[in-house]
């Protein structure tokens, strides 16, 4: 795999005057079956940041993502997203939070009986968006992710990379402040993986905070972005311009 030829966007400025869009304070999480998923996690992500969340299977990456989208609540500590303490968000209001966070997954999760356009439009229809807004927004998003020509194709007619692009377009329908990508390249070949990462960088450059959970060492090592490493539920490393593993040299 080769690194991207064009220059990367500048790293976002991280400093005390940049309000974190994600803030976890001493977060612990234990599942009802007693399995401890996270221990005393502290993490601040400023708006516009791009960070890799790395770690082996079972390290707690997926649990952390479940907390961020409020599928779960922490057992201890506080999770604050865009200024909202998730423990204080009423269940009936969770949908408002989720419109501020786009999520993409390794398995794309597209609806197989809908075209690409319909999949993206569906995310707007289910939130009561007006028809005019949907007709305007969907083609623009498909243009952004490079799927214009496949607008009327069903997922089964697309490659893995194209399906992931469709999923990214869907995740962006509400113009979210945060895009969470959970192993977005896990099912893709190396070249397609790079294309997806390039797309995420492009989205980040437009101002969206991107948190990408991955085990793709080549991508992380080549990108030299902020890396948060989890092991056994704890943050063991949080470095700017870092590699997948401590002490890695290009």
């Amino acid at each position, binding site marked *: 795999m080769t690194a991207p030829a064009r220059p990367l966007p500048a790293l976002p400025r991280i400093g005390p005057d940049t309000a974190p869009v994600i803030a976890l304070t001493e977060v612990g999480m234990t599942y009802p079956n007693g399995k401890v998923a996270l221990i005393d996690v502290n993490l601040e992500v400023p708006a516009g940041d791009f960070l890799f969340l790395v770690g082996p299977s079972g390290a707690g990456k997926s649990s952390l993502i479940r907390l961020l*989208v*409020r*599928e779960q*609540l922490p057992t201890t500590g506080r999770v604050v997203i865009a200024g909202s303490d998730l423990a204080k968000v009423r*269940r*009936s209001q*969770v*949908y*408002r*939070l*989720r*419109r501020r966070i786009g*999520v993409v997954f390794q398995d794309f*999760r597209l*609806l197989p009986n809908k075209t690409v356009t319909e999949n993206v439009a*569906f*995310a707007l*229809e*289910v*939130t*009561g*968006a*007006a028809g005019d807004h949907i007709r305007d927004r969907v083609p623009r998003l498909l243009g952004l992710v490079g799927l214009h020509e496949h607008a009327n194709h069903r997922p089964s007619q697309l490659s893995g990379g194209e399906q992931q692009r469709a999923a990214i377009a*869907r*995740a962006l*329908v*509400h113009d979210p402040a945060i895009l969470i990508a959970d192993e977005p390249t896990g099912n893709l070949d190396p070249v397609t993986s790079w294309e997806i990462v390039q797309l995420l960088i492009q989205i980040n450059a437009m101002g969206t905070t991107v948190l990408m959970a991955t085990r793709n060492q080549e991508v992380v090592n080549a990108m030299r972005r902020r890396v948060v490493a989890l092991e056994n539920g704890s943050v063991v490393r949080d470095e700017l311009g870092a590699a997948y593993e401590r002490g890695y040299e290009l």
Partner: protein
Amino acid sequence: MGFIRFLGFTLARAGQGFWRNGMMSLAATATVVLMLVLLAGLLIVLGGLDSGLNYIESKVGVTARLVDDVSAQRIEQISAEVEAVPGVAAVEYVSPDEALGRLEEAYRARGQELDTGGAEITLYASLEVALSDPEAGDEVVAALALYPEVERITTRQDQYDTLLGVIGLIRTIGLVAIVLVGLVVVFMVVNTIRIAVYSRSGEVEIMRLVGASDPFIRWPFIVEGILCGLIGAAVTVGLVALAWGPIQPLLVSVFQMPTAVSDQFLAGLAVLLVAVGLVIGALGSWISVRSNLSSAA
């Protein structure tokens, strides 16, 4: 505008769901029809019996046959005293001539002529006591029995009581049967919607992730259940309307239900069937959505 979009979305999704979940939707709708046909049958029978009861109630009264040659003054006195008994609406003296006139009229109504074979017949004079309270029959009988001029007393109270008992029994058995079938229907709708929720779990997950609010996620399933109930009700109303032709003369002749009343009865029955279909569909789907579709967290 927001509510109209929500309504449009909900109706479209419910319709798609009903269609896609075809076999289960059909089964649930068929059970709704079964229950509503039972309900309609029970209500028609009860309505007929109620009409019959009203008819008898209007006729309930006490007839006191008088001995011969009671003076007009005495008849007036007895009438006034009986009229003072609580529960008595009116007391009417029927002379032997009037009684004969009525008999001849009754024959003519059946298309016959009273044939006495040339003999002159004399009927008894009587006092006909109309009751404002059907329960007062016993007291009136007791009051009339005190007069030596009263030869025999007849009443329709027994007939009334028997019919009242039959109506009570049919109502109880019918309601128990309908409640049992109703439970089966709710169970069917619950299962239909449960299968719909599972078959669309992928969509529901995506809806949650992209920030659909609970009403957008839940109401299409609830409306899908309501559709089962409403379609079932529409089919039942159609069946009742088809059967109404043969049933109506039966209600009029057997139960003495007036035609105008039976037409009103059909309209009321149709409204009730639609309401029950709607409620039972909504109830079943609401229970299913509550237990199978946890809220947003």
